[in-house]
């Protein structure tokens, strides 16, 4: 018979590491039903019958955010056997605040007092037995990093599950409050399961709307409860929610004072504080950020990353492609099929995969920045800008990831709690140039602005401007108007992350990029290759007479006002919709040059016939803003969970692209 263990705790408490240690490779990720909140599930390494459910990182069980509601509903309805509460020992009071609420659900709680290694390093002492006695829960000191206490934790957990422990003692509030709670209790006794009675009483006292809806009490009872609450509020001169939260913290402060001895004086500077004196310094913060990002990009995209590109190109084009082709031809395979496989699929997938080393290195750095705590500072610094259009500094992080690839960037928007903010972030993130758009810029800059390489980098600035302007514009529309969500964010202490953790984090992002290559791009490349080598009468023809060319000629007039109304370019924008990486390859194909890359001199020379400098820049702008590749659109659909919103996003992005390119070309032609 299966048992369930729920894992709950604050963000930054080391819960994820602990979950990884407990479940190992048995974990899989899904969504909580009906919402876009991530759900991680697995079973204990030691026992297949003990399932572990990782609840979202939460600070409380209030009714205000999706993560909290999902968690409390799970605990009250699904009734796991026990809860392992991961408590950050270096942040005792705030973490125990959640503990007192978990206890109220009536489920036995086992506390994993995590990061105990840091406590010991600081010279602080925590009286574990005293803490356990005061809270009425078993407490096991753990360190997910060093592995300390994990064996005992698992043993204790299994013991608690198998022996149906009694739920622990609930927190005590002030005398007045307890009296009010007792009175409310007598009104609803019998209507709810007895072990959840305490939970419901307190929530009703807090005027918790979600609980009110659930219980659906009759008008008389509602009025009586309201009377009790109002009377107490008057007596204590405070609002009910405030009374409860203050009482909780007072209760916890007393416990913490008794059990926690701190070595350094409260208010003195820690190492993290000292680092922040520079990192979030009024004058140094932004320059430092730009220097760091420049360094990250230089290493990942230019120096180290570039080393690998040649190797991968050789691997796919010369090694796999050529050998496969000659082998297939030697066994008599139809040359059309060989063409499809080598010039279509392998070339297409290869084009995308050449980016993998650069992406991985970039994601490694970004993951490191997140895991060590720097990203929180970045959100802190950037918040002022994003607040202008109703978002928060947290929206900056997906955009930073978007400089690598939009797919993991869109997925990273999950950390944004407010749904409206998350939607806007997803819609705006693709405006930031992703790695795949760079070759297009490189090609056109090489052909038309050979002495102004900075124009390619200017695309980042243009992207950022577009985000800001679009954000301000969208904020004024009905769909996004409204009060900004609160931005109350913890700045966790800096710590040196473990290589394993960063590597896993990097892989989670990078694998999305690789997956898109293996699936969508492969299919798309095959499709494009077929369309550009076949005529409407299904004959094998030159690109000029193919289906793709005629589609290109049909839509080319649309692009005339933008300066590039040629079917070759129209075709490139179509393929670009599937994957931005294919744009350069498409130019090569329509020019009859076969498979080439952006540095190829013949390509650079021939492209001159398609554009003028102004229209080339307009095309770059169009590529920058237009709907991202199919993979990114797919990710958008997954995160938005709505076809209507996905379509709106794509429409919005493409409209911006068209308008911007139009303006650039028309105004540019007048000036230059």
């Amino acid at each position, binding site marked *: 018979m299966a048992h369930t263990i729920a894992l709950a705790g604050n963000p930054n408490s080391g819960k994820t590491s602990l979950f990884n240690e407990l479940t190992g490779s048995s974990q899989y990720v899904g969504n909580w039903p009906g919402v876009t909140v991530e759900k991680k599930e697995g079973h204990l390494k030691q026992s297949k019958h003990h399932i572990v459910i990782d609840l979202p990182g939460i*600070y*409380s069980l*209030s009714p*205000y*955010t999706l993560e909290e509601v999902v968690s409390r509903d799970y605990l009250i309805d699904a009734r796991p056997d026990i809860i392992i509460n991961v408590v950050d020992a*270096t*942040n*005792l*009071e*705030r973490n125990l*605040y959640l503990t007192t609420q978990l206890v109220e659900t009536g489920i036995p709680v086992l506390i994993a007092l995590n990061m105990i290694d840091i406590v010991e390093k600081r010279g602080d002492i925590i009286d574990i037995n005293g803490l356990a006695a005061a809270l009425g829960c078993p407490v096991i000191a753990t360190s997910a990093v060093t592995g300390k206490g994990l064996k005992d934790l698992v043993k204790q957990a299994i013991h608690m599950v198998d022996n149906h422990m009694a739920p622990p003692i609930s927190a005590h509030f002030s005398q007045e409050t307890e009296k009010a709670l007792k009175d409310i209790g007598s009104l609803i006794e019998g209507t709810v399961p007895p072990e959840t009675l305490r939970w419901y009483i307190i929530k009703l006292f807090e005027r918790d709307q979600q609980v009110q809806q659930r219980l659906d009490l009759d008008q008389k009872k509602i009025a009586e409860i309201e009377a009790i609450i109002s009377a107490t509020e008057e007596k204590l001169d*405070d*609002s009910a*929610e*405030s009374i409860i*939260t*203050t009482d909780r*913290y*007072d209760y916890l402060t007393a416990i913490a004072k008794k059990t926690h001895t*701190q070595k350094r004086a*409260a*208010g003195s500077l820690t190492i*993290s*504080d000292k680092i*922040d004196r520079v990192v*979030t*310094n*009024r*004058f140094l*913060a*932004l320059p430092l950020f730009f220097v760091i990002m420049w360094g990250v990009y230089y290493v990942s995209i230019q120096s180290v990353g570039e080393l690998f590109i040649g190797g991968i190109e050789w691997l796919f084009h010369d090694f796999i492609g050529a050998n496969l082709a000659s082998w297939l031809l030697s066994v008599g395979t139809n040359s059309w099929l060989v063409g499809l496989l080598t010039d279509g699929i392998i070339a297409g997938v290869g084009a995308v995969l050449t980016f993998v080393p650069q992406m991985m290195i970039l994601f490694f750095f970004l993951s490191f920045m997140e895991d060590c705590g720097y990203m*929180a500072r970045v*959100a*802190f*610094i*950037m*918040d*002022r*800008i994003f*607040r202008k259009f109703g978002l928060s500094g947290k929206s900056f992080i997906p955009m930073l990831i978007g400089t690598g690839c939009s797919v993991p960037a869109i997925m990273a928007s999950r950390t944004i709690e407010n749904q409206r903010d998350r939607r806007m972030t997803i819609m705006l993130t693709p405006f930031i140039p992703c790695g795949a758009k760079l070759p297009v810029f490189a090609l056109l800059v090489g052909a038309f602005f050979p002495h102004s390489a900075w124009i390619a980098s200017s695309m980042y600035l243009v992207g950022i401007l577009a985000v800001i302007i679009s954000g301000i514009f969208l904020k004024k529309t009905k769909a996004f108007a409204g009060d900004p*969500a*609160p*931005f*109350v*964010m*913890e*700045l*966790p*202490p800096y710590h040196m992350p473990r290589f394993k953790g960063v590597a896993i984090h990097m892989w989670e992002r990078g694998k999305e990029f690789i997956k898109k290559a293996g699936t969508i791009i492969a299919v798309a490349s095959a499709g494009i290759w077929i369309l550009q080598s076949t005529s409407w009468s299904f004959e094998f023809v030159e690109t000029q007479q193919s289906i793709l060319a005629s589609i290109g000629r049909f839509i080319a007039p649309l692009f005339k006002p933008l300066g590039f109304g040629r079917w070759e370019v129209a075709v490139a924008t179509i393929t670009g919709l599937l994957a931005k990486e294919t744009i350069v390859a498409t130019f090569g194909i329509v020019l009859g040059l076969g498979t080439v890359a952006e540095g190829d001199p013949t390509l650079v020379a021939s492209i001159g016939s398609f554009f003028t400098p102004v229209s080339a820049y307009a095309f770059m702008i169009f590529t920058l803003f237009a709907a991202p590749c199919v993979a990114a659109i797919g990710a958008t659909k997954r995160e938005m969970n709505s076809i209507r919103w996905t379509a709106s996003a794509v429409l919005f992005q493409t409209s911006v692209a068209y308008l911007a390119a139009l303006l650039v070309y028309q105004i540019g032609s007048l000036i230059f």
Partner: protein
Amino acid sequence: MTLSDIRPGSTVKVRKVSGEGATMRRIMDMGITKGCSVIVRKVAPLGDPIEVTVRGYELSLRKSDASLIYVES
């Protein structure tokens, strides 16, 4: 006097958390409750948000949210 009026480096005591709904609850959930001590650390480079120390950890708070928190020295 609210928390948004306090200069970096000062320590104050919370008198009352005003406002309602999600914002007020979030502020209190994070530990800023009646009677607790808060140290204002610094202001972000672009002028907002502010960083405070509460219950032993660092919290970032927008000035508009900090103006809901009434304090005394």
